[in-house]
């Protein structure tokens, strides 16, 4: 009996060590980036590196003072916000329809949505570049947001579909019997229940757009987003600029993932269907 407990304890220790190692594997690289971002430019290019930053803000102020950075940052926020609104505005009604109705063509639509996953979507930017020039959408916030919405829309549809499916139809029916019409019932009963989940999928759409590189680099010239700006200046920009830029990309992402952590499974669990 004591032998098995020793074995179990040893096993537990290996398990805890493994967990600790994996946590280190995820967090250490992010820490190293922030060490660089929070050190003076001379330290960033200097050698050897220390594992604790000097908390010097010169690299960051160099980055934010660099011509075009503030604009790029602001463009990223704008594109991501429009993407967020579009993908929820277009995706949530579809998710609601899928969860509440059985109708011919439902499977075709679901197939269309699921199919988007089997295609390398950033490539869409190539033909759309021409279409946008024709329609005057080239190099605009809206044009890029439309492409990013294509990336985010399938998720928005599937997430809201699972959200609405989780809210019993009986609640809605009760509201109807009490004199609400469909729209009122939706606004007064369903929406408050679904709001946190919808917010989470909105945040997720924001993150998808915020992080996207290829389409942003292909479709924008003057109105570059932060990712496009960083990518196109990679071979000319000094190290402190790169690392401060990387940190500026990563920091919001940390908060976003924290905000939607409860919904990560709802989002990806349904990806299984």
């Amino acid at each position, binding site marked *: 009996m004591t032998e098995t407990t020793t074995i179990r304890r040893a096993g537990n220790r290996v398990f805890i060590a493994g967990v600790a190692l994996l946590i280190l594997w995820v967090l250490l690289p992010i820490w190293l980036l922030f060490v660089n971002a929070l050190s003076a430019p001379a330290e960033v290019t200097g050698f*050897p590196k220390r594992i604790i930053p000097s908390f010097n803000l010169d690299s960051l102020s160099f980055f934010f003072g660099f011509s075009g950075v503030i604009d790029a940052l602001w463009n990223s926020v704008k594109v991501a916000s429009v993407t967020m609104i579009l993908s929820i505005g277009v*995706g949530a009604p*579809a998710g609601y329809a*899928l969860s509440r109705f059985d109708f011919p063509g439902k499977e075709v639509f679901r197939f269309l949505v699921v199919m988007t996953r089997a295609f390398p979507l950033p490539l*869409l930017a190539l033909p759309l570049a021409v279409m946008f020039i024709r329609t005057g959408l080239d190099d605009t916030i809206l044009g890029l947001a439309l492409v990013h919405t294509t990336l985010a829309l399938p998720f928005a549809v599937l997430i809201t579909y699972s959200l609405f499916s989780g809210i019993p139809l009986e609640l809605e029916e009760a509201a109807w019997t009490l004199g609400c019409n469909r729209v009122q019932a939706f606004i007064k009963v369903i929406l408050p229940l679904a709001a946190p989940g919808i917010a989470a999928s909105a945040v997720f759409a924001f993150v998808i757009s915020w992080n996207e590189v290829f389409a942003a680099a292909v479709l924008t010239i003057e109105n570059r987003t932060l990712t496009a700006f960083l990518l196109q200046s990679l071979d000319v920009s000094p*190290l402190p600029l790169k690392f401060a830029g990387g940190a500026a990309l990563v920091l919001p992402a940390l908060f976003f993932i924290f905000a939607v952590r409860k919904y*990560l499974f709802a989002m990806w669990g349904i990806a299984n269907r």
Partner: protein
Amino acid sequence: MPRMLPYLLLLPATAFLCLFFLYPFVQVAHDSVMRNAAYTLENFTRMAGHWKFSTAFWNTMLLAAVVVPIQLAMALTMASIVTKLQRGRSSILYIFAIPLGISDLAAGLIWLSVFEQSGFLNSLLVGLGVVDQPILLLGYQNTWVIFIAIVLAEVWRATAIMMVILVAGMGLIPKEYGEAADVFGASRWQKFRRVTLPMLKPSLQTALILRVILAFEVFAVVVALGGTQLPVLMSETYHWQFQMQERGVAAAFAMVILAVSVAFTILILRLLHVPKGARV
């Protein structure tokens, strides 16, 4: 009216996907066989004739072949850990999921801070006395170091997406199956191999398709770490579209990426086929 309602609700999304998903794919296929307003295969011959094409193609394939199995193993490990945890489950899950929200460009820059000449790896090597001087790690003399750096960055960044799908999938497996295995005296490994893995097939399918397609799209990580020293399909597509202003050839590259993506999707669907009646 009520009979039309679902269609009305689906209309915006359908219209959107037709305009910005189906139409561009038809267009890019069209562009790839079009040159000077005539149908031709010249774009493809120019693409295949360029000395960088086969390097880019095989680099992309090799990266996917190395990265995806490592990620699968790590994602399965992480998902098993998260499923087993009693305390601290949500915090550890959050930490494991962090890279999910991080851009591939940022991931490239993160690993650049490790691998650049005055970076943390050189600091460690000099500190340990392995080398006397910081060495140029990401140079053209040793592209294999660039390759390893890209593999690390990709594994670091994109394992989380597989993990989350697998955790969700493990949650769907009824507990009774594991309990039954316990009754018959199965070891942990046997339980994992004979119960969890087969039951996890649908999630494995989704995770693998998603991951393999993203692996063929690898771009910003490669550019951030290797510049143009290690060409991949996506960076060549970008190069032809921009520097060369050859949209037809870029479209041909896109068709190649599309073809391998679809081929592998079908392959994974076949290999991990789950009969309809056997789903949880």
